[in-house]
């Protein structure tokens, strides 16, 4: 804890150390754990983007969205349509990524407009349906005209390239070979930093306060002059934009997409990242996203351990992952409902009873009888 206090008193130094750590992280990971783990890092960053986007909808505005992955899918497919041999189009990434974000944002509004009268559970059900509709569309739009290539998915998607510098290849810098996973890491990191910046600015603004007000009490918010419909649509659009952007990056990184990548489980995973990390709190959301991407990968080793210990694989690692994951979530909800790294405010909300003693809130209790 001493180190934490030391750094807390020197935020610049802490920031510098963090920057250095983030800069060398892929090399550390690549050297220590192997190259496949650098790809895991890349995915972690993609999920951070998604979690940051969904956090705007769920964490800031309090709208439960179970179909968020649809926006991810839209971004990914748009990238594939405009930059792959499928339609013979090869637009550059700087044109396609914003378009994907825009398309997702528009769909966010299209989904939001008719559904935002619904609250809580009902909204969740409709958004869940929307997520599935998009996925099923992608699955079936291979006939009569082949738009999405159906369940086979779309292949040979263009990588991100700056002029002739394609991120898909290994490049040599000062004699060090830097693989595509490393290069994408830095690209994704840049996007993550930009999205963190946007999310932070939004939270601490007139719009962010309006979202919080709606989350707290929608009737009171509208009685305070907030156009709840428009402000909620804005939350949907912003969240969807983040999702669309992440989708485009995913498409370019992976080079291949299929409807399988955009199932309901993805939406639920992203939601879990937010809940686990700390809803509405950006550091928490990032932590949740990284943990839930890295842990399942780490649990793959459980199969190897079993083989080493008892000579055979008694429990399939994939099953075990889901089991442990489920248990972890239940334990979280029981003992730390505010998430692993909640904002101070939210921690207070959920543990109000514990701190009554330390606060001089006797008067509150007298008045409330």
């Amino acid at each position, binding site marked *: 804890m001493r180190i934490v206090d030391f750094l807390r008193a020197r935020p610049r130094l802490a920031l510098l150390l963090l920057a250095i750590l983030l800069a060398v992280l892929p090399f550390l990971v690549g050297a220590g754990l192997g190259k496949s783990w650098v790809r895991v890092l890349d995915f972690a960053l993609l999920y951070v983007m998604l979690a940051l986007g969904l956090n705007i909808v769920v964490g800031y505005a309090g709208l439960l969205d179970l179909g968020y992955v649809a926006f991810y899918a839209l971004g990914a497919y748009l990238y594939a349509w405009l930059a792959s041999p499928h339609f013979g189009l090869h637009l550059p990434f700087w044109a396609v990524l914003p378009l994907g974000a825009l398309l997702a944002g528009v769909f966010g509004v299209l989904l939001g407009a008719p559904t935002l009268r619904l609250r809580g559970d009902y909204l969740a059900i409709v958004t869940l349906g929307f997520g599935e509709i998009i996925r099923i569309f992608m699955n079936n739009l291979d006939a009569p005209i082949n738009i999405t290539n159906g369940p086979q998915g779309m292949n040979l998607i263009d990588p991100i390239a700056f002029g002739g510098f394609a991120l898909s290849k290994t490049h040599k810098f000062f004699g060090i070979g830097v693989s595509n996973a490393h290069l994408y890491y830095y690209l994704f990191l840049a996007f993550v930093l930009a999205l963190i910046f946007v999310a932070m600015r939004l939270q601490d603004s*007139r719009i*962010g306060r309006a979202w919080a007000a709606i989350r*707290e009490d929608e009737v009171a918010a509208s009685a305070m002059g907030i156009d709840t419909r428009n402000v909620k649509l804005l939350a949907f659009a912003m969240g969807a934009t983040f999702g669309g952007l992440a989708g485009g990056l995913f498409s370019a990184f992976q080079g291949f997409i299929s409807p399988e990548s955009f199932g309901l489980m993805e939406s639920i995973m992203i939601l879990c990242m937010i809940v686990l990390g700390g809803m509405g709190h950006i550091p928490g959301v990032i932590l949740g996203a990284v943990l839930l991407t890295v842990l399942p990968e780490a649990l793959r080793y459980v199969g190897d351990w079993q083989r080493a210990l008892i000579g055979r694989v008694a429990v399939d690692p994939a099953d075990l992952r889901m089991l442990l994951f489920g248990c972890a979530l239940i334990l979280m909800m029981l003992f730390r409902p505010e998430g692993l790294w909640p904002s101070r405010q939210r921690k207070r*909300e959920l543990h109000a009873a514990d701190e009554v003693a330390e606060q001089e809130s006797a*008067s*509150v209790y007298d008045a409330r009888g």
Partner: protein
Amino acid sequence: MFTMREAEAMTLLDVERVGKRFGGLAALDDVSLSVRPGEIYGLIGPNGAGKTTLFNCMTGLYRVSEGTVRLDGRVVHNRPPHEVVRQGFARTFQNIRLFPNMTALENVMVGRHVRTRAGVLGAVLRGARTRDEEAAIRARAHELLQFVGLERKARVLAGHLAYGEQRRLEIARALATEPKLLALDEPVAGMNPSERRQMAEFFLKLRDSGVTLLLIEHDVKLVMGVCDRVAVLDYGKKIAEGAPDAVQRDPAVIAAYLGVGAA
């Protein structure tokens, strides 16, 4: 007395023959009243008389079945609540509706929403105009907290405030929208006599600061003490209107409060 034209010119809120039915039940029937600028207007009546229903009809939470509501000559009934607020008609709620997990200061800052403009681009780029606006919002919110005597609680979560403080915070939040007319729904409910006296003084201070008040109250004594004019609702109908002492002596009012036989 005023001529019709003069009286109209002096009307801030004009409720004309408003009716509201829930299915077959007429919650409001042909209610007309007018509030003049700068006065404290009281709306009283027994439980279930339709006071809150009328409130909700005026502020856009309910659609009216018939009649019109005008604020400063502009129609406000059947408009979305946020537009009613924009016209200058703010309200509080009978069962306090603050944003409990936001601080007192943030609650009041939300009230500034309708008078400010910064959008997503402004929020992200945070240019000079957005920064100025944000600073003005903060400054105004602090002023209002000071006005209601909650400056020292600015950083406390609204949900952690004492009951009376929550009432005052709700008023500060409503004042942040720069209302011409502030409607308070049972603002002293659940308060003890000394708190009630304080609130009564506070209402007079509010009026003197230039806000017209529409007060729904249960507490007849308080209403008679601070209101310039009073209307009485019973079973969705207006049964009396006028100066407090005249209304107090009205046999119909006495009958409504004490039962028919008592008159």
